[in-house]
């Protein structure tokens, strides 16, 4: 695999606390552009917390604190000058549970654009088609865009959520176990979409399904109890892990 050294996100000495409990301990690594970084690890190892700290969704909870730096294109995202809402437009997130907003499929997709003040109908139409196609959903819904997003199946709603993020044309897409509630076919749809999308975006995929990381990720990071145990090329992590914990987890000896 061709390796492009183009650092998108630089995580430096990041510690995250929730109510004075240290959830993540001294994280130090880089995420390259146009790659999929898979994050694996047992439940409770801080994967989701880490992901949500990348677009500051953690701030919605109380008693939460971070120290260290997270640089996006060289700029600290926790800088007090930085506008958190525009950060979230650049760093989109797809949650574990598919949640369409209570409005039509069309309005779901253009919701973020309307926030940014885009109102040109033609442009919105174009973006709706483009985003839904990129999320492999267009063919299923193109004739019923005015239907409520809540009427779609779980798998369709999750692709709708992905399309909603894509419509914003973010730099980075975060996915928090996007397939945990989906059937195998929907999972395949999402995975295919991701493989296609990394050409344009930087993707971080948290997954409980180790095999999913093996299938789609370029790089894989293994988290355990709030620590980054190992990060490397997916192939290396799955065939020749350096740390014993990693090989134990991958071969299913614990977790």
């Amino acid at each position, binding site marked *: 695999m061709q390796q492009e050294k183009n650092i998108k996100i630089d995580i430096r000495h990041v510690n995250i606390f929730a109510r004075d409990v240290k959830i993540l301990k001294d994280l130090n690594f880089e995420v390259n552009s146009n790659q999929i970084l898979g994050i694996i690890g047992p439940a409770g190892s801080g994967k989701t917390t880490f992901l949500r700290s990348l677009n500051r969704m953690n701030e919605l909870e109380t008693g939460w604190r971070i120290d260290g730096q997270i640089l996006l294109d060289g700029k600290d995202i926790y800088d007090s000058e930085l506008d958190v809402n525009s950060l*979230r*437009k650049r760093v989109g997130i797809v949650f574990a549970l598919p*949640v369409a*907003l*209570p409005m039509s499929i069309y309005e779901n997709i253009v*919701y973020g654009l*309307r926030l940014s003040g885009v109102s040109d109908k033609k442009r919105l139409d174009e973006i709706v088609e483009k985003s839904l196609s990129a999320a492999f959903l267009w063919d299923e819904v193109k004739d019923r865009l005015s239907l409520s997003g809540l*009427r779609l199946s779980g798998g369709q709603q999750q692709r709708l959520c992905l399309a909603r993020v894509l419509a*914003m044309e973010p730099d980075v897409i975060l996915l928090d176990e996007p397939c945990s509630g989906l059937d195998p076919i929907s999972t395949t749809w999402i995975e295919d979409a991701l493989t296609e999308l990394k050409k344009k975006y930087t993707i971080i995929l948290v997954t409980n399904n180790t095999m999913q990381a093996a299938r789609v990720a370029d790089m894989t990071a293994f988290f355990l109890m709030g620590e980054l145990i190992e990060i490397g090329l997916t192939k290396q992590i799955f065939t020749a892990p350096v740390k014993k914990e990693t090989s134990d987890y991958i071969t299913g000896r614990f977790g």
Partner: protein
Amino acid sequence: MKLLGEKGVERLLSVVAFSAISALGLIAVFIFIEGLPFLFKYGIKDFLLSSDWRPDAGKFGIYPMIAASFWVMLGAMLIGAPLGIAGAIFLAEFVPKTVMNIIKPAIELLAAIPSVIYGFIGVVVLAPVIRDLFGGPGLSLLAGAIILGIMIMPTVISISIDSLLAVPVSFREGSLALGATKWQTVHMLTTKAAKSGIVASIILGMGRAIGETMAVIMVTGNSVMIPHSPLESVRTLTANIALEMSYAIGMHREALFATGVVLFIVIIILNSIASVAIRKKVIVK
């Protein structure tokens, strides 16, 4: 309990529950029996649309009272609904849960204050202020609208908060994750999702405003007149019944019951609309 047994308790409870419903039924039947014959005797059109209310001359036109009730209610809505909804949005979306849990019960307590107290404050505080600021007698349509606007706020706030809080957190998170500010989320998502509950709160408030009697009698002045300005003295449907029932006999008495029929129908309609709206809390298009 042992004496009655499972079946017995069940039967006893159903009798209790049924008696509450039958009370409503009996009230309805009673009012209609007393009021309906008059409506047909006198003529529904004359009764509702004539503005000549002179019971001693056999003239029973309640149009001035209908107009007064309507305008007082509308004024109360214009004052109470925006304030109530804004308050509900503030409490549900912008203050910490702990603060809301203190303020919301306090607001609900406002509903427990006897209406005569509201009327009293209206007479002593509000009416003189209106008289000094705008002229007129002070005891007026405006005073009624303001007092009722305050009285319906607990209803509007409490039900609106409940329906805002019923909007799933995941919707808000989804919106914020797309870069929406808190206010954009409220304005584009939460209030839309809670719309039916908010509408219901307003309609229930309208019902309350139409039905309120004591406070209204005390602050509106009670002249039987079609209002031409908010500063005029008016008499609502409820006030008319309460003021005249004690000495009314014959046709006069029947006319007051017929007024009750009109009120009853209006309030049943408003409450039915509200309960239908409340049932579908989150709108799924």
